[in-house]
């Protein structure tokens, strides 16, 4: 796509979903937004529509019907409306996915980086609980973590809501995604937040200074640049998880990707209704994979001696 002629520097064309996770498969759709971080311009709509048409012409499967993607997103809402009445489901989704599952599709990522940093800065600057006065201990940024947890629960609730609204259409595929790729981004978000935690004995614990907050923003920004699977793999290494659990987890995810990349199986899941799921081989295979994935995740988050205390302290209550 000819970015230079379309998108000025206050805007960014951003993709979400499987392409951002580095998991694009044959049947994947393309969730995208035109992120605007600057003055309001009536012409933004035309740019957004031009992108929409170009993607359609190029045979990309468009975003779902919720309207969350496939149009414009304004940075002010993303940055300023965290929580409260104005933080709609759509706004939360766009914001949290910006951090966990997004990628700028263009050479110039300036607007994308600026908004990402703005969001991270808000979560940390307004968090009252994660820095000790002596700077020797840093806790987990709860404001950010709570939003990620909230988003995960929202996805789970919306899954049930979509089942009702869409008369079970696409139910099985959504179910499998919830068990796998949605759960993956939740886990990567938790690991991103846990990375801020430092014990007093850690050599890397730095004394409290005025720049510690932006140091942490920079650290979290480095996580945003990673794909969810990379964050998970990094977590497995950083927390010294055993080879068997790591292998089980990543193999399960690999099998999931292979399954949804199979056009026949994907189509089966897309059409399958919940009432028929129990007797369907493809769904059974997918469920087996998700159980293996969940088993390895449970072992990692609840039995790993370094991670389990963080999971219990911050991830549950």
């Amino acid at each position, binding site marked *: 796509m000819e970015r230079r002629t379309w998108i000025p520097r206050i805007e960014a064309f951003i993709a979400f979903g499987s392409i951002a996770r580095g998991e694009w498969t044959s049947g994947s759709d393309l969730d995208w937004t035109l992120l605007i971080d600057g003055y309001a311009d009536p012409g933004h709509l035309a740019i957004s529509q031009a992108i929409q048409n170009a993607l359609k012409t190029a045979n990309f499967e468009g975003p779902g019907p919720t309207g969350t993607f496939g149009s414009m997103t304004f940075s002010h809402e993303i940055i300023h409306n965290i929580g409260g009445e104005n933080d709609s489901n759509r706004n939360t989704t766009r914001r949290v996915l910006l951090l966990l599952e997004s990628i700028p599709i263009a050479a110039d990522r*300036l607007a994308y980086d600026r908004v990402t940093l703005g969001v*991270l800065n808000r979560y940390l600057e307004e968090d*009252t*609980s994660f*820095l000790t006065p002596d700077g020797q*201990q840093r*806790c987990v940024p709860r404001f950010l973590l709570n939003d990620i947890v909230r988003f995960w629960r929202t996805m789970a609730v919306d899954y049930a809501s979509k089942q009702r609204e869409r008369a079970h259409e696409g139910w099985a595929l959504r179910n499998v995604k919830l068990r796998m790729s949605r759960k993956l981004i939740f886990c990567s978000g938790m690991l991103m937040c846990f990375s801020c935690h430092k014990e007093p004995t850690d050599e890397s614990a730095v004394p*409290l200074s*005025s720049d510690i907050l*932006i140091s942490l923003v920079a650290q979290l920004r480095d996580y945003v640049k990673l794909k969810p699977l990379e964050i998970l793999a990094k977590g497995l290494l950083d927390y010294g998880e055993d080879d068997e659990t790591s292998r089980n987890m990543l193999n399960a995810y690999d099998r999931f990707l292979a399954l949804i990349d199979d056009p026949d199986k994907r189509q089966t899941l897309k059409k399958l209704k919940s009432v028929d799921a129990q007797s369907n081989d493809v769904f059974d295979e997918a469920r087996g994979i998700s159980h293996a994935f969940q088993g390895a995740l449970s072992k990692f988050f609840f039995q790993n001696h370094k991670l389990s205390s963080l999971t219990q302290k911050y991830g549950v209550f």
Partner: protein
Amino acid sequence: MRKIGFSTGALAKGDFALALKFLRGTSVGVIELSALRQNELWPLLDSLELLELAPFSYVSVHAPSRIEEGTEKKVVDALGTFAKRGWPVITHPDAIRDFDLWRSLGRLLCIENMDNRKPIGRTAIELRGIFEKLPEASFCLDLGHARQVDPTMTEALVMLREFKSRLIQLHVSEVNTASRHELLTLAAVYAFRKVASLIPESIPIILETPAARNQIEREIATAARALKEAPAHPMTVMH
């Protein structure tokens, strides 16, 4: 105490002699002679011996931000005259076409980070590529540009960390949405204080704010406030 001075361009555009006149009798001890437009470079060179620069413990020169095609060697040679005096030559990276020519200035070639409008040199990653081509070059952090690119100042922090050993000068101003320099605002003061602790006190600070003569001392005081280390994170822990 920080050494804070002005760019002559901010005070009197191309009239550097007038700017020096404004600064006479003030507390300003550091200065940047501006030749931001190429046609300002030759008069500056010609009057070099006549300028009253004794009150200044630090002098730098701002190279033209745009160089006419076919004149790059002539411009770099002229800038070499300033470098021979030990004066850093503050340069916009997008003004450079032939990196070989500019390498001759060594550490006195001082690369400045750019604002939103420019295609290069705006972030640490973009500057990294430029310093790879100019390994000896030093660095002028423009805090106003850095804040325009990223209001959280995280990019500024990354640049300060990555190019710490190259840092020799600071530019300070408010940069508006049209990328024009303005007088410092309270928002800029708060933003700059976030990274103040990472800036050594010995680094000269050049204000690019268009201060009128009667605003010079006040603007210096504001800059001093902006570069005073902010108090540590005010939040207290509640586990």
